[in-house]
């Protein structure tokens, strides 16, 4: 029997949930849903008509490296991994899967943090890794056209000889690819001033699930009809498979300088962020670390953070030397009147990079401090940062886990790092409940469950809190409009009605039971 898209989803989720609760680290993969060998053989057989042998992986030892993305808590052995080398092959794989009713999960560098690229037990994992060429850099037009597997940083490197760069800079930019950035609408530390992926992409060429070529956006600043480009960006690989991306390049600022300001109270630091904005300044970067985060990263990065401060703000200005001088002076004035206890300004590029080293190494430092960490991604109105930090402190006590905080303070995007022991199922459960509570709190504060990491499979439950059923149904409608058969990356982003009903029931009791009863589904 051919697999009907989506019907396995509930089972898939249950399997993951159970395995994470019951087992320690090494056994996650063995708990993933079993592969239907007959279906596998048939799909592999058909793929052999399209792809060379080296481009088809199906033995467990070959497919294991593909069982998760950057969110390693969720794992699933793919039925088949296809690694096409030409766009025609990608189209043929899609046509075949569409005809056979086999789900397809596109995958880039798999640095995503929400499980958007988690394989499907009855599907083909479509690796775009071979499409790694920069096709064209046009310095005069300030655009670059690249294949989806080109790394984010490689675009800026290719543009550097023209004095240009690609602005969005997610912290994984050394490894993450532009195809993944398009799927996730990736941000970075400079997006308050320079925008997200959606603000910096002109055109996405792709293939529909039926294998038909489509072009979203174009060479101009707009295209006729509905702005489908805006919805394809951030659609987590569910609407089309990206085959080519044209991005805008912007002139490299001549100079960047960074202020490091300490605060005795997190509320003061939060207020300082608001004051900077109120003064009409849009900093190139505006980041906050709380005391726990500073103490976590300092031994590792030697960034010179004030370890006695309750919070440290990094506030960057870029532009011409005259512009930077003017802006830094204004920022210092604002920060001083916002009760900063000490202010340092980078006096050289090395200095500036040192200030940032701590912030940029927060995740690896967390990885050293505990066996595992769980990075959350809620966004809240800036003015509620202080309040949120206080709430997280209370949750630390409640769940018995520590949680240093780093924020993209300029846009209210939180990255609490919950430290836990992934070899201890009880600790895993507490970390998960902790994370869920932070996200619920973000929604209650008028924010969102994900600022830049995506929903994937990780935040399906919290989508039920953030959106009502009608809006979730409208998302399903958008999905159907692009992919009527529902075969492209099914089961991500949009929770089923059933799932939300179950989650609602769990949530009601969440305050009474420390760990919601296990078989939730």
């Amino acid at each position, binding site marked *: 029997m051919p697999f009907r898209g989506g019907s396995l989803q509930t089972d898939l989720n249950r399997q993951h949930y159970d395995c994470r609760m019951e087992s320690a680290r090494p056994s996650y993969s063995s708990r993933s849903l079993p592969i239907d060998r007959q279906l596998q053989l048939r799909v592999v057989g058909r793929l052999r008509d399209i792809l060379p042998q080296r481009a088809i992986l199906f033995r467990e030892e070959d497919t294991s490296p593909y069982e998760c993305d950057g969110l390693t808590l969720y794992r699933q052995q793919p039925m088949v991994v296809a690694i096409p080398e030409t766009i025609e092959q990608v189209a043929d794989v899609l046509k075949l899967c569409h005809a056979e009713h086999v789900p397809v999960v596109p995958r880039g560098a798999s640095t995503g943090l929400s499980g958007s690229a988690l394989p499907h037990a009855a599907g083909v994992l479509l690796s775009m890794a071979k499409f790694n060429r920069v096709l064209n850099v046009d*310095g005069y*037009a300030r655009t670059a056209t690249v294949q989806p597997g080109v790394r984010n940083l490689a675009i800026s490197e290719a543009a550097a000889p023209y004095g*240009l760069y690609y602005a969005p800079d997610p912290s994984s930019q050394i490894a993450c690819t532009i195809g993944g950035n398009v799927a*996730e609408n990736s*941000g970075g530390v400079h997006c*308050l001033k320079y*925008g997200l992926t959606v*603000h910096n992409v002109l055109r996405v060429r792709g293939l*529909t699930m039926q294998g*038909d070529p*489509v*072009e979203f956006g174009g*060479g*101009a*600043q*707009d*295209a*006729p*009809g*509905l*702005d489908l480009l*805006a*919805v394809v960006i951030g659609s987590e690989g569910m609407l089309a498979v990206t085959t080519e991306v044209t991005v805008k390049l912007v*002139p490299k*600022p001549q100079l960047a300088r960074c202020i490091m300001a300490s605060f005795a109270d997190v509320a003061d630091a939060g207020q300082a962020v608001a004051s900077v*904005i109120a003064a*009409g*300044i*849009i900093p190139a970067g505006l980041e906050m670390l709380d005391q726990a985060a500073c103490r976590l990263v300092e031994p590792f990065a030697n960034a010179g953070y004030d370890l006695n401060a309750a919070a440290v703000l990094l506030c960057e200005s870029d*532009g*011409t030397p*005259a*512009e930077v*001088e*003017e*802006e830094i002076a204004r920022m210092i004035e604002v920060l001083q009147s916002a009760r900063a206890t000490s202010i340092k300004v980078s006096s050289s590029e090395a200095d500036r990079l040192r200030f940032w080293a701590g912030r940029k190494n927060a995740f690896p430092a967390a990885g050293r401090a505990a066996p595992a960490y769980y990075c959350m991604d809620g*966004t809240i*109105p800036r*003015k509620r940062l202080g309040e949120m930090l206080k709430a997280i402190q209370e949750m630390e006590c409640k769940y018995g886990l520590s949680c240093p905080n780093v924020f993209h303070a300029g*846009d*209210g995007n939180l990255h609490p790092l919950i430290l836990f022991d992934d070899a201890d199922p009880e600790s895993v459960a507490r970390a998960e409940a902790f994370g869920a509570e932070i996200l619920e709190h973000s929604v209650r504060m*008028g924010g*969102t*469950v*994900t*600022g*830049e990491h*995506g929903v994937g499979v990780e935040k399906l439950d919290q*989508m039920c809190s953030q*959106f009502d059923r009608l*809006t979730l149904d*409208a*998302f399903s*409608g*958008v999905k*159907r*409009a*692009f992919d*009527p058969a529902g075969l492209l990356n099914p089961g991500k*982003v949009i929770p089923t009605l059933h799932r939300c009903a179950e989650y609602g029931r769990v949530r009601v009791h969440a305050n009474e039971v420390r760990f919601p009863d296990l078989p939730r589904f």
Partner: protein
Amino acid sequence: MEPAIAALSEQIRSAAASRTALRIRAGGTKDFYGNAPLGMVLDPRPLQGIVAYEPTELVVSVRAGTPLAELEQELAAKSQMLAFEPPHFGSDATVGGCVASGLAGPRRTASGGVRDFVLGARLLNGRGESLSFGGTVMKNVAGYDVARLLAGSLGILGVLVEISLKVLPMPVAQSTLRFETSAATALRKLNEWGGRPLPLSASAWSDSMLTVRLSGATAAVRAARDDLGGELIDDEDAMEFWRSIREQTHQFFAGDTALWRMSVPSTAPMLTAGDQLIEWGGAQRWLRTLQPTQTVRECARRAGGHATLFRGGDRSQGVFAPLPPALAAIHERLKTEFDPAGIFNPDRMFAGL
């Protein structure tokens, strides 16, 4: 549901039941834009007022029927602005019409278009149901970004109820410079300047004159002024000039000859002969011409863009460039999902949609 929204919802449901076309129209300042409006008027102006505005959050949430001028006045009082500098085309322009038409003004190339500033939207769909997309925070990737999709959707997917927009501080300093130059030289200069870290916020070339606006920090504007040279335009004249470009009261736009909007890569060479006004660093070219639709469309297509019949002319072939089949199919299915009875602004974007 509050009464004003419930009333609109009821109007939608009864129109859907009887398959009556609805023409979403507030001030009517953009009646000219798109294919001819059809159907019974649905007026969203009962939806009034700024719902939330916190200057330090850089976000404003506003009801769709609120006058655009009122919103801009509120923002200006806090030294903030809609950075996409939308045209009003009349004093009755509303925020809903501004977002639904998706038209941006002179600052487009420097700051972005309408969709770049839409953070969230509430919508009544073709079943009269209230949907809420996006939110009021800068970064939000929960669910598909339908709020941005609504910018420029010409009301074909539903009735905008409330919109949350990112706003930006007004620039501290501003200067306008003018150069006498041919179109070819202007295009070359604009593209070269675009590759340098200059605080360019607008450009317009017509009739052998290139006018550019610099906006930003005082020091940056002063330095760029010294760097670029040209004739410095008096501040008041400059403001009036940019308003005339944005509102199309500039003499270039006078008269009845068909007005085409060519959206092309900024580096495209000078297009077909005809009277032209070039904006957006070369990316938006206004063309007055009597040439047939096919010729104009083909010219824009070859340049890597598309052409819209903005005002006047022979509109029988539709004002927007037709879509390739794969995209047209997605449009049709999206339309059916949001508006199954096909009542909202039929044909306004494309015949049959």
